[in-house]
């Protein structure tokens, strides 16, 4: 089934005639362990049909937050509405409508791929054939292999297949590509794109910036239990990124003072590279013109947009913290 999905059974769960655009609404969520707030007042809204990427360094509170939403952990405080249902007292009412791939999930070692999918399917009372899912995840040829004999990438795809057995409206994937090789990662990404194309909402937890940039419509960055930035990838780069990045490689020693003399901003020197962060393309064209006229030499140059990685580093303040540490 491709295309629009209705927003779940309309059993008077959504108020009034206006269907809720948001499938998950989190307000003021806290999770406290002793004196530590692992989740420190998080509020989030996730739209139907979007791929939402939840980013954060290790230990930032990502998995704790997701596991609260999935019903694996209980919050200390706060409210969560999922698919129009308040899940404060447990996720029983929505279990049939969500699919979860927990972090570091692995299945029964000696049970085959088909049997694994059928087992989880039967828990929902479904008879949805394992075949269809294996086809979607491109694992048909491994159907009769035992789980323990699969490669990491295949195991992860079985995990995703298992999270889809009930044809869920929202799919939670917690670090689905951690530890996978680039080819396997691409395959998982392809599956996520297919899910999006089928109108499903994907809640993706990751610490790979590239993954978020590649897949996400909407990103939230969590650090120390708090959301420190939220928006589309473009918005985040626009608001927190450093614009355009101009890099000269194989530079003449005099090039750096020359560039600094232009007053277009600080030049960072990384080995034989000079890197400048610039606001717009006119500045770049101007600089290139002047460098050309000066006769100073360099081997190559390139211009690129600032990326999420840089936004993340800037926001989570890792470099800044390191400097503080040294002072």
């Amino acid at each position, binding site marked *: 089934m491709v295309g629009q999905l209705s927003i779940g059974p309309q059993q008077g769960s959504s108020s009034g005639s206006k269907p809720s655009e948001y499938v998950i609404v989190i307000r003021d969520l806290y999770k406290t362990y002793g004196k530590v707030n692992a989740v420190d007042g998080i509020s989030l809204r996730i739209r139907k049909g979007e791929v939402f990427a939840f980013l954060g360094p290790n230990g930032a509170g990502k998995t704790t937050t997701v596991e609260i939403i*999935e019903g694996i952990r209980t919050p200390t405080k706060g409210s969560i509405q999922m698919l129009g249902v308040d899940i404060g007292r447990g996720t029983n009412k929505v279990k049939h409508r969500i699919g979860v791939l927990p972090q570091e999930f692995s299945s029964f070692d000696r049970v085959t791929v088909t049997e694994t999918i059928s*087992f989880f399917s039967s828990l929902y009372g479904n008879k949805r054939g394992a075949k269809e899912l294996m086809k979607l995840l491109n694992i048909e040829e491994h159907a009769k292999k035992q789980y323990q004999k699969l490669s990491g990438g295949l195991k992860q795809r079985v995990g995703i297949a298992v999270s889809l057995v009930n044809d869920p409206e929202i799919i939670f994937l917690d670090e689905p590509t951690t530890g996978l090789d680039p080819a396997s990662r691409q395959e998982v990404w392809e599956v996520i794109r297919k899910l999006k194309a089928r109108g499903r909402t994907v809640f993706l937890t990751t610490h790979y910036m590239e993954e978020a940039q590649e897949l996400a419509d909407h990103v939230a960055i969590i650090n120390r239990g708090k959301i420190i930035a939220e928006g589309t990838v473009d918005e985040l780069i626009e608001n927190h990124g450093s614009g355009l990045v101009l890099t000269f490689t194989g530079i003449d020693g005099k090039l750096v003072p020359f560039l600094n003399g232009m007053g277009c901003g600080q030049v960072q020197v990384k080995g034989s590279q000079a890197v400048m962060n610039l606001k717009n393309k006119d500045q770049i064209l101007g600089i290139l013109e002047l460098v050309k006229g000066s006769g100073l030499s360099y081997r190559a140059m390139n211009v690129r947009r600032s990326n999420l990685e840089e936004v993340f580093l800037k926001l989570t303040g890792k470099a800044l913290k390191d400097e503080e540490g040294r002072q």
Partner: protein
Amino acid sequence: MNPRRIWSVFLVNLRDFVRDKGGLFFTFLFPIILMLLFGFIFSESDNVTYDIYLQDMDQTPMSQNLTVSLKGVRAFEVHVVGPDRALDDLVEEEKAGFIIVIPEGYQERLEENLQGNISVPVNLTLHMDRSQSSSQVKYSILASVVGQLNKVLTNTTDVMGLSEGGTISPDDFEYIEFFIPGVIGLSVMSGAVFGTIFGDTELKKKGIFRKLSTTPITRGEWILSTMLFQLFLAAITAIVILVVGWIVFGARLHMNPIAALIIIFEAFAFTGLSMLVVRFVKDAQAAAALANAITFPMMFLSGSFFDVEAMPAFIQTIAKALPLYYVNQALREAMIFNDTISAASYMSVIAIFAVIVFLLGVKLTTWKQD
């Protein structure tokens, strides 16, 4: 409770189990090996003889007589040593643990005593290693031999005696028939405890519990299904043990409904108990330690191998606090004596225990993380 989900869990457990050769070995082969070992060791016990050493310092016709009498005792293998052999040597070289010395002047003093001038009896000197468990048995046999000789020599008649007036138990049974219910009780217990504790720890580690908590299956369904699976393994274990016992040792035991019921409650009780305690376990090592901590004391203290009544009083008290004791007693009443009422009274303890741990399991265990 949804029967289809319970069946699904049962089936997935079964598939995972039958493809695991190590698990199969420990579940089925281990009890058989245990039974064969004990069976062969103890079924030979009728022909046991005890080594004793005899040193005759008197070297007279009467001391020779005594030597002959002792040699006639079937339970003794008598090693006669010369009068000039040092006892220390004997202990050192022959590992002698029980030495009888006939003192010099034995005949002379014995004759005096027999003529009616009894002052003190002639004592045989005993040197025995008390750390050997057989020493006590040897001493008892020797004491009764000496008693008999006294009677013969003094020509007294018995005023009291023993006669066999028929056996007390309805059936005669041999050690192996006593032992087999013990092996069944022990195997069902360790199967349930190890299976559950290792299984649950692995599922926790793999994130399968976290996954299950996001699906519609309830904890009650999961617990019941796991208990049924352990019961299934227990039933097979019991049948295998009975068949091997019958084929190899010709052991004849009663297989009655009450025995089956006891095994059902036992499997439920120990699976439930393990599910309750496994939540405190973080990894496989801790799981192994915990499983051993549960099974090990019970294995030795609950009368699996030997009758609890033969143990010291304080151990008997401990035994009566252990669930496996009631299983063993109940199984023996049912399988050896075919005594349903007596078996049922022991079984009621384990049945109540099973119900309590199941209810506690449903109430206290959780898939949720903190």
